[in-house]
């Protein structure tokens, strides 16, 4: 049982290693390998879930040097993230195979794609801070070639700006880790360190370094500059980037730092909870406002991500179980909903040539399935019941009341209005406006020739849309994201 985390990691690491060396023409082998890895992984994650639910926390350890062990360990928080990534990886792989067809450089693409997922998995299953950092960096490195994949100037510039933000962020995280370890020894998540002997200022600075470094990946304002540009990447990459891989890794890291290193109580004692909540709120509002100004679909979605990911941070910053649950559950909910939107954006682009919002006019007629999925995702983001996003917002609101930070309610309200303001016009255009057959907004593909019927692209989008509805409808079940988040929050607040 202890080997299980390692095996789960290998289900993406091995396909990555083999894929790099597969000749370009070996489409069947490459696809089989990646799909097989994804399916096996999903199965193993389910097994792991059962084990953790029974109270077993499997752990594997590789010593690198005295006091430096790579530890893979599954606890309930890591499972929340790993199950999300396993599920979405499978769908994204299906989507990507259809999306790329037989385009060039696919061995490189799928190699780094799998490596990226392996990094996310490792990050989720990390048992110590340094293990977390190793996978955090692996993620940075494996994402770069994905962002730059198209190899045109725009992609290369986006990749460049990504690295420009990410590497200093990593250095901040590394310094924070080493500083902390210099004070209290190796830090394992299972046994949070005793910080009582450390002075206030060191702890505050370490916390700021952590949040600053992880905040680059989580795209917290003003560290978010790389994210909108990164939408230059191919649609499957954007989907993964915005839903599970990079931004989520940053948010997940902040959750780990707050709950498993500092502890909620100490964060409050140091007076860091409220500032963090403020930063998150600013990000939420700023992202929404910027999204409103974007006329390119993927850019609008990207700014929406900036805004939505900070819900997670906001929930974490609020002291109190409801805030925690709201933040954690949004980690999953935002992923499912945002990937739906990006799948659909890719479909609009690929099948209709529509990239700008005015090009979406009337596409609901030619692409009903895509547009239905898109609508579910968008309404979920706004927070309309019974879609998953509603659950997140309710819990965050209650959490705000519980922790006495009533101004947060205003932020949530304003953000919901802004969400509606930048999503509803899209739905209006898609469903109710006539198609533009000529003129500025017209799509490069003639309206009559638009055809969404590519199962590999549409089915994943439909599935994630359905899942986000189901996550909202069956929120009360023990194995729903909400049920799982409640379990974790119970651990964080138990004495």
């Amino acid at each position: 049982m202890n080997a299980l985390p390692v095996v789960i990691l290998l289900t993406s690491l091995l396909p990555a290693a083999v894929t790099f060396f597969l000749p370009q023409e070996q489409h069947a082998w490459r696809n089989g390998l990646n799909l097989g890895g994804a399916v096996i992984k999903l199965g193993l994650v389910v097994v792991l879930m059962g084990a953790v639910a029974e109270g077993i926390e499997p752990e594997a350890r590789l010593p690198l040097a005295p006091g430096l062990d790579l530890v893979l360990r599954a606890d309930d928080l890591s499972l929340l993230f790993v199950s999300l990534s396993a599920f979405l990886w499978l769908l994204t792989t299906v989507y990507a195979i259809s999306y790329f067809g037989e385009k060039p450089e696919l061995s490189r693409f799928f190699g780094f794609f799998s490596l990226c997922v392996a990094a996310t998995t490792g990050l989720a299953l990390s048992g110590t801070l340094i293990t977390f950092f190793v996978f955090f960096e692996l993620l940075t490195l494996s994402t770069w070639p994905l962002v730059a994949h198209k190899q045109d100037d725009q992609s290369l510039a986006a990749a460049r700006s990504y690295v420009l933000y990410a590497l200093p962020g990593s250095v901040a995280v590394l310094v924070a880790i080493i500083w902390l370890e210099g004070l209290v020894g190796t830090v394992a998540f299972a046994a949070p360190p005793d910080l009582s002997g450390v002075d206030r200022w060191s702890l505050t600075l370490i916390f700021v370094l952590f949040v600053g470094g992880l905040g680059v990946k989580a795209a917290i304002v003003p560290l978010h500059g790389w994210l909108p540009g990164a939408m230059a990447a191919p649609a499957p990459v954007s989907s993964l980037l915005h839903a599970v891989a990079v931004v989520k890794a940053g948010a997940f890291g902040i959750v780990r730092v707050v709950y498993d290193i500092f502890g909620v109580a100490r964060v409050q004692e140091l007076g860091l909870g409220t500032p963090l909540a403020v930063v998150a709120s600013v990000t939420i509002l700023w992202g929404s406002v910027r999204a409103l100004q974007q006329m390119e679909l993927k850019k609008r979605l990207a700014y929406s991500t900036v805004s939505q990911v900070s819900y997670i941070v906001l929930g974490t910053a609020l002291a109190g179980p409801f805030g925690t649950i709201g933040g954690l559950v949004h980690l999953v909910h935002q992923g499912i909903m945002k990937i739906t939107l990006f799948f659909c954006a890719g479909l609009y682009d690929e099948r209709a040539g529509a990239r700008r919002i005015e090009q979406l006019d009337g596409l609901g007629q030619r692409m009903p399935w895509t547009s239905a999925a898109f609508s579910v995702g968008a309404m979920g983001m706004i927070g309309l019941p019974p879609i998953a996003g509603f659950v997140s917002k309710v819990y965050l609101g209650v959490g705000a009341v519980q922790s006495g930070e009533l101004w947060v309610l205003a932020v949530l309200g304003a953000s919901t209005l802004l969400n509606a303001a930048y999503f509803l016009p899209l739905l209006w255009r898609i469903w109710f406006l006539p198609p533009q057959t000529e003129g500025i907004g017209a799509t490069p593909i003639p309206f009559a020739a638009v055809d969404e019927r590519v199962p590999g692209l549409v089915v994943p989008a439909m599935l994630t849309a359905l899942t986000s509805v189901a996550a909202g409808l069956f929120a009360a079940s023990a194995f729903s994201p909400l049920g799982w988040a409640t379990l974790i929050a119970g651990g964080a607040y138990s004495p």
Partner: protein
Amino acid sequence: MTGEVALAVLLLGPLLAALGCLLAGRQGSTVALLALIAGAAAVVVLWDGMLRTGPIEVRLGGWGAPLGIVLRADGLAVGFLAAAVVVMGAVWAVARHDFATPRARDVFWPSSMLLWGALNAIMVSRDLFNLYVGLELLTLTAVAMVALGRGPGAIEAALRYVLYALMGSLVYLLGVVLVYHGHGTLDLDRIAAGRSGADALALGLMTAGLAIKTALFPFHAWLPPAHAGAPSPASALLSALVPKAGFVMLVRLWFEAMPDATPPAALAVMAALGAGAILHGGLMALRQERLKQILAYSTVAQLGYLFVMFPLVGGAGAGTAGAAEAWAGTQIGAFSHALAKAAVFLCAALWIRAIGSDRLADLAGLARAMPLSCFAFGMAAVSLMGLPPSGGFIAKYLVMRASFELGLPGWGLVLAAGGLLAAAYFYRPLAALFAREPPRVQRTPRLLEAVPLALALAAAALGVLSQPAYDLLQAGAPAYARGIGP
């Protein structure tokens, strides 16, 4: 006895092989291969023997110190012997295709064997004067390799190299004379056992001489043109291995022979020079337009990393766990730099073969034409930036942690800044490789591209299998670098 035979194979083998190469002419590479195979086996025997029975000591001619010369293969030495044989092997594979003309072939093969032999001799020698002779042999072979370069700057680079080296060796030798005067011996351990009023000046002189030979900032001006001007497989040897010899000698002097003659301020000066090298080398690398020049300035910077260890291992922290971490981290860093730097220079060798240039502008789009070597370059660059998973990361992590544990976080932050600079200057070639338009290339055998890949993988593997390297380095390490008190 097996240890002594293995040592004999590593010391006499390369020299005999060099003579063999000289006589064999066309068959030079075959002779070299045989010596390399024997050398690799000998390294395995030494490593194994050392882990079982501790450092292996040989008193040459049965005399022993102070009259004779003592050799000792400790963990540090065996680590470098292993790194050298691996790098030599990889360079062999690429050089076999690169040095085709009679002149290049007839000079390169014997010289490369002599270079290897000199390195091995330096790594195990415990005698200050013997170290000097070894270092001269190393320098002259290195100069020969630079002079083999075809570019217009190669002669000038070799000339500057030789001038610096001449002065460096004399200044070093002056220190040796004072040591012999004060101690009546040249043996490192016997010097450590006694004290003399001449120690401070002697150590200062020897350090200055070795700093020139190791291209420690600000004595580094000769290195970039030399390493960039040499034929690329030779550059791999020069950059990956040669400066390490002077570094090992400095480590032996400061921490084994004269630990008492090193006040904290002196240790801090060494680290400050290292920091200067990191920043200056990094900034200069950012400004270069040719790949090999970037790599050469990167070597200047990476050598700086090694000297940050000085105030952490010596000084107030001596004997603590932090000192042990800094020691092991630095040496692991040196090994992984050897592997990764050889890998990137061999990539450069293959690319110059394929497109006839190493200008960044000409490398554009090579990732499509030569994916394997570009991948190798990327992996090696990751190790040189100190990002996980790689030996370079473990090295940086250990030294940084030591600096925080010992209350000297400034040195750790310098390493962090150096990592960012490395990322910045490696970003340019990486981005160029990744550009869209594929250049016209001459076909390169895939097997040849696998050579730097193997090196890069080894550098990465050092980040996962660092525990064996750590254990190796603890064998025979000075007491205060083992975390058990001075």
